[in-house]
């Protein structure tokens, strides 16, 4: 069976305009050659620090952005070159949950209006049917009866994210892109929303592309994990393998940098020095070499491609590093 989603060599380059005439003098390579697949019912976690291109990648897949190059095959159709009109039927199948439910919900619409909108846009149902569907959606995401008559500001952050999730699942999509869905929430609320997402996946057979910077959160909900650095995937594999046996030095540093809620654990020194370089002037060779403790001359000159490595469990794991560290 072909995968639900197959992304090949995707690139999203933004012109950086400068000067009085706003000429594009430089290019920001936000996503620079990313390939992966996603099976039906699977969750792929996408982890990386700010500016690594993870959100841009998500926005390319829902086609909020038109990628510069590469293909996005969804059920066999390449979405990358499609026009707005041709995209409309596909948009039912791919939905998005955003980080900030305040900004992604229309403050002047009641929750009922917001949730009925997808049905109206796609010409589904009579007003009475739509009202019933809205009720069902509210039940599904655990919001109280009567919520449809309220406005977003009347809800707490966690409830607003439930509204964002209800909107995303309204049209019964196959793929939901979750872009930092719990980063803005408090810990006790975060676990409620993560449980909801996992339940909905079970019930509706959804596939998730789960974008987040918190590796512990991503590992908990994902089947496989991709680690991004400066617009590229540097490691990709089963969630347990990547955690138990990280192969890329960046993945190791990310794991080591997470503060662990255990005072007995000796506080480690910072695993990495320096900051993430700018995607406008990415380093030569391996983009990670200026911060890598193992970098050699080869790393400065030659960019490592993702290559498959052997795992103890026999599952597929790949790493973009010249060396077996």
């Amino acid at each position, binding site marked *: 069976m072909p995968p639900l989603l197959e992304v090949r060599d995707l690139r999203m380059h933004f012109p950086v305009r400068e000067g009085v005439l706003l000429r594009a003098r430089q290019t920001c390579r936000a996503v620079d050659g990313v390939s992966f697949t996603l099976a039906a019912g699977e969750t792929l976690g996408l982890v990386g620090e700010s500016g690594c291109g993870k959100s841009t990648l998500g926005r390319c897949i829902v086609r909020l952005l038109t990628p510069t190059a590469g293909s996005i095959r969804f059920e066999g159709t390449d979405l990358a070159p499609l026009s707005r009109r041709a995209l409309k039927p596909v948009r039912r199948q791919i939905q998005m949950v955003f980080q900030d439910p305040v900004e992604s919900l229309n403050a002047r619409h009641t929750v009922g209006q917001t949730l009925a909108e997808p049905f109206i846009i796609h010409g589904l149902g009579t007003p009475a049917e739509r009202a019933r569907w809205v009720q069902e959606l509210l039940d599904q995401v655990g919001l109280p009866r009567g919520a449809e008559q309220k406005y977003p500001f009347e809800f707490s952050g966690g409830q607003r994210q439930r509204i964002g999730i209800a909107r995303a699942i309204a049209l019964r999509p196959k793929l939901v892109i979750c872009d930092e869905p719990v980063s803005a929430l*408090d810990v006790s609320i975060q676990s409620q929303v993560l449980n909801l997402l996992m339940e909905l996946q079970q019930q509706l057979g959804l596939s998730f592309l789960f974008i987040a910077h918190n590796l512990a959160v991503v590992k*908990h909900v994902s089947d496989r994990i991709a680690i991004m650095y400066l617009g590229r995937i540097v490691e990709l594999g089963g969630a347990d393998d990547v955690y138990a046996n990280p192969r890329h030095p960046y993945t190791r540093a990310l794991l080591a940098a997470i503060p662990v809620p255990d005072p007995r654990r000796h506080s480690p020194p910072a695993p990495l020095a320096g900051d993430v370089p700018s995607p406008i002037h990415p380093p030569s060779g391996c983009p990670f070499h200026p911060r890598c403790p193992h970098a050699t001359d080869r790393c400065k000159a030659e960019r490592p491609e993702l290559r498959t490595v052997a795992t103890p469990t026999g599952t597929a794991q790949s790493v973009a590093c010249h060396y077996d560290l």
Partner: protein
Amino acid sequence: MSSPAPLLSIRDLAVGFQTDSGLLRAVDGISFDVPRGRTVGVVGESGCGKSVTAFSIMRLLPQPHGKILAGQILFDGRDLVQATPAEMGTIRAARIGMVFQEPLSALNPVHTIGRQLAEIYLLHKTKDKREALRLAVDMLRRVGLPSPEVRVGEYPHQLSGGMRQRVVIAMALACHPDLLIADEPTTALDVTVQAQILALLRELRAEMGMAVLLITHDLGVIAEQCDEVVVMYAGRIAEQGTVEQIFDRPTHPYTRGLLASIPRLEHPRKTRLTTIEGLVPALSEMPAGCRFQNRCPLASDQCRQSQPPLEEIDPGHTVACFHWRSSV
């Protein structure tokens, strides 16, 4: 516990905000100490009053709505609640430094970082501008800013988030304060940069011996940085103790729920996470009695009628719960 007088002692502090719906008590009678040279963490979720506590100590509550309603903030034996604005001006920077969550809002965008840092030295240490700039470069080197001689001439927007936070830390520590208040100092930073800033704070604390009041929502940061912990919920203290007591023997149902709901790397994937059901009540709708009652598995009539007092269950470990014995 009998020990020398703590550097900072907060006694029955209550802070309120005047709003359209009346006076809201954001902090409602909290007491805790920060001993000299120790790091005390205040942890809690949004709206629990942890930042309001920090701003009250600095006397930087938003005016005219924010007001200290009752209590004392004894800093080195002196009540900051009674201090005049001029006295507070001397105490801030010289004796208490503060680091905020968002470094960009703590820095002036139109002045070079060298000028902003040198200004502190000109106010408190020296009259000589060149000497002040030299001290600024030294301080920036100590906080690990690369090539500080060049960076002093740059503006905040030219620095990365991590470097900006280093500059803010340099400014907070310029006059060797006795107390550093750090309000979510790494929340806006990436995890690898967060690790750098946390390591820097540990180093500087060991080197300069100041006490730190660290405010955060991240229990991982608390475990790594702190000696003592204050857990706040809805404007009150739920539990306090040493970091070992809080993590080894969490006793308040809220602390236990909070620790259990963190997804951990070693947990099996795709399993249901423990949650604390429900929501924090709004400040305008606080129930009588215990404020955690609507989310607590142990809540009883007693919890709905009266506020549980802080009870010492072990030396230095206090809990505000009637049912703490059934909780563990």
